[in-house]
């Protein structure tokens, strides 16, 4: 902070403007001129949000996942009651979260100590104070999963709800009467405890309240769990096979890649809506950001010629630069589906037909290309409409470039994902890919600011695509992209043929 031109005050002023602009992503931002305030805004709020996402995944998986894999049947056949199962799984999650939050607290304490502002109590309680808020997210998902048809739908609905609540909480002061929804958001309660921020401390009432909410939601979940059929939602009626007659409706052959798109339609729509809503929201923030734009140029989101560009153009460039990472995230999720095809025995069945590895690889690329195009097209469309209503000038050719390069990024990421999945046909490869996307994004975001060498920047997949709204990639980067699109696809095909067909 001391190294920033103008010192911590100048940094705080600059970051405050950027924080306001990126309010949907991360909030609140207070006392950024202090290390505790900066760390709380920059790291702790985000870590807690990630832990809430983790809680959602676990909340959906721990019960419904066990039901779908028939593990729950075996568990219940031992004589343990459903009530006991639910309570014990919640306690297990709480204990795990306690360990994780303690670990993060200790790591934060060490950082504070290393940077000359030791605060053990504040560091530990910054995370520990969020413990029950995270368990609240878990319990909320458990409750949602009592009513859904499957684990996937529970996870999907809970994730979308969580994203909505997270953003609504961050924007609660801006959305008028709808601001009350923040009281449903776990991050609202977590953020009340901010002992590292001067003027704030441990918010015991919110901790107590989230603890009570956890117990309440767990009790409600128990009520429904003990009354519903396993592998079904509480209100979902089971079909009785004996009463139904054999279908005589005309059947039609399906094309695999189209079928894959159809099967993943909910995921595709979710990614598209999230992306479009996110871009629209950023565009809606443009008037307030424009006022402080000069303060956040240090973010390095623009190209070398940005000094000559209008603020509107630079800002739209910043917004559209988020599209390739979103599309990459979608592709990584698709790669999880490829692993599932192997692990769940579908691949074995597909490849026992005239479908070859080569054809399957090309069809997978086709599916992700169409999906990427759909996300990009709708997102850019929504961004354009939002910009039109706010009277923000947009460069049509720039948007066309964004569309083309976002799709190219999706295809490149597909090729990388196919190669990784072929070499490591395990669920861990999805984590590797997700980590790569995360690292790529961080590199593309901070490399300019910190003046990292070009070779480090080239590790990022997003580096090659530059700033699509402003310009085409350089010749070297275009060559890099071409490598992924053509020889990369060939390599993916060859490697796929060597990978196992059965789990």
């Amino acid at each position: 902070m001391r190294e920033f031109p103008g010192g911590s005050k100048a940094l705080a002023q600059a970051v405050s403007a950027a924080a306001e602009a990126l309010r949907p992503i991360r909030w609140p931002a207070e006392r950024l001129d202090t290390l505790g305030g900066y760390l709380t805004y920059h790291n702790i709020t985000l870590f807690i949000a990630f832990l809430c996402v983790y809680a959602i995944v676990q909340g959906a998986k721990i019960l419904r996942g066990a039901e779908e894999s028939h593990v729950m049947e075996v568990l219940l056949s031992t004589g343990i009651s459903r009530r006991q199962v639910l309570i014990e799984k919640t306690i297990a999650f709480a204990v795990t979260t306690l360990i994780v939050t303690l670990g993060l607290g200790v790591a934060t304490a060490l950082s504070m100590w290393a940077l000359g502002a030791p605060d053990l109590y504040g560091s530990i309680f910054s995370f520990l104070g969020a413990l029950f808020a995270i368990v609240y997210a878990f319990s909320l998902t458990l409750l949602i999963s009592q009513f859904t048809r499957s684990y996937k739908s529970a996870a999907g609905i809970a994730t979308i709800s969580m994203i909505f609540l997270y953003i609504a909480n961050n924007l609660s002061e801006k959305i008028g009467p709808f601001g009350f929804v923040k009281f449903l958001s776990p991050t609202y309660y977590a953020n009340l405890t901010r002992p590292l921020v001067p003027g704030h401390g441990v918010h015991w009432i919110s901790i107590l309240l989230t603890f009570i909410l956890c117990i309440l939601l767990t009790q409600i979940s128990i009520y429904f769990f003990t009354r519903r059929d396993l592998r079904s939602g509480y209100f979902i009626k089971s079909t009785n096979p004996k009463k139904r007659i054999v279908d005589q409706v005309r059947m039609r052959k399906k094309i695999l890649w189209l079928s894959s798109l159809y099967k993943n339609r909910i995921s595709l729509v979710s990614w598209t809506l999230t992306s479009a809503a996110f871009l629209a929201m950023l565009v809606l923030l443009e008037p307030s950001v424009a006022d402080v734009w000069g303060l956040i140029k240090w973010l390095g989101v623009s190209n070398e010629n940005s000094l000559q560009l209008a603020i509107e153009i630079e800002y739209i460039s910043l917004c559209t630069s988020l599209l390739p990472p979103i599309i990459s995230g979608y592709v990584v999720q698709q790669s999880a589906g490829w692993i599932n095809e192997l692990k769940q025995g579908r691949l074995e069945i597909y490849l026992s037909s005239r479908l070859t590895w080569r054809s399957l690889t090309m069809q997978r690329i086709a599916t992700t290309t169409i999906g990427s195009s759909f996300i990009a097209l709708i997102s850019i469309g929504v961004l354009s409409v939002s910009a039109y209503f706010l009277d923000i000038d947009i460069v049509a050719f720039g948007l066309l470039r964004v569309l083309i390069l976002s799709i190219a990024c999706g295809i490149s990421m597909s090729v990388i994902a196919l190669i990784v999945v072929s070499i490591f046909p395990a669920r861990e490869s999805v984590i590797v890919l997700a980590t790569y996307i995360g690292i790529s994004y961080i590199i593309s975001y901070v490399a300019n600011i910190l003046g990292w060498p070009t070779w480090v920047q080239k590790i990022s997949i997003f580096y090659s695509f530059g700033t699509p709204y402003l310009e085409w990639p350089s010749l070297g980067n275009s060559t890099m992209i071409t490598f992924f699109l053509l020889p990369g696809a060939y390599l993916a095909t060859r490697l796929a043929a060597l990978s196992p067909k059965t789990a």
Partner: protein
Amino acid sequence: MKTSEKNNQKELNNLKPVINAVNLSKDYGGHRGLFDLNLSVFEGEIFGLIGPNGSGKSTFIRLIMDLIRPTSGSVHIFGASSKTHARWVMDLIGYIPGELPRFPGLSARYIIEELAGLRSDVDFAYVHELSQRLQLDLNLKYEELSHGNKQKMMLIQAFMHMPKLLVLDEPTLGLDPIIQREFTNLVSEVRDQGCAVILSSHVLADIERICDRIGLIINGNLVKVGTLSELRESKVHDVEIVCNNHFDHSKLLEIKNLQNLELDGSTISARVSGPMGPFLKAISELDVLEFDSRELSLEEVFFSEFSR
């Protein structure tokens, strides 16, 4: 080689081999896998694979399907390699894996339509016929079906394109007796149309009833191949007699090819290996009320082989 076996071999030589495995091995290490398997399966033949769990049956089936690659040796389907001519070969095969795949969120009908899209020729009228014969409502969600009903769907997808070769790993698992009978009928029908069938099963009664030849795999080795009567190495009979008068059983103890002798009042039961003459001679003095003799079932052959 006995005359009947020579005749069988001559008949087989006149047929085209659909599956031809030569010195086929898949070594997983630790003496696990399949070793030096030589086998031909012919047009219009139903070949059954039996053996204990982990003996190598599914490994052989996966090698046929090119799902795993051999350590040495080769297997050809219709004279072609399923590796180099996958597109052509696989289109001729109907396959049921040993473990049911998962298709979350999809109806049986959707899955059939999707898999039909991967086949060159599927007659949906035949799909409907199969679904009716197997009593499966295709509108139902696959994941909500019972194990047996999922297996029915797998049967439909294996039969729907009228393949020239059926490769079935445990096809009757979870099927009720009525559907098992229907399955037997289906297999017999396609056999009559020239389709070759290779199936593995632990339901030995099924194998005994429908298979033309049977292969016994133990510890990765194909230890026996032949018709059921050929598998019964020496003619072994389980005999049981009920007699009216007292009998000195010491005479029976002198018969060398008699085993498992049991006396229960007026009932005598034993196992005769080979010629029945000495046993018949010994009981000729008796006032026999009932005489029952039967050859060993496949299950008994299986157990006697496995216990060696």
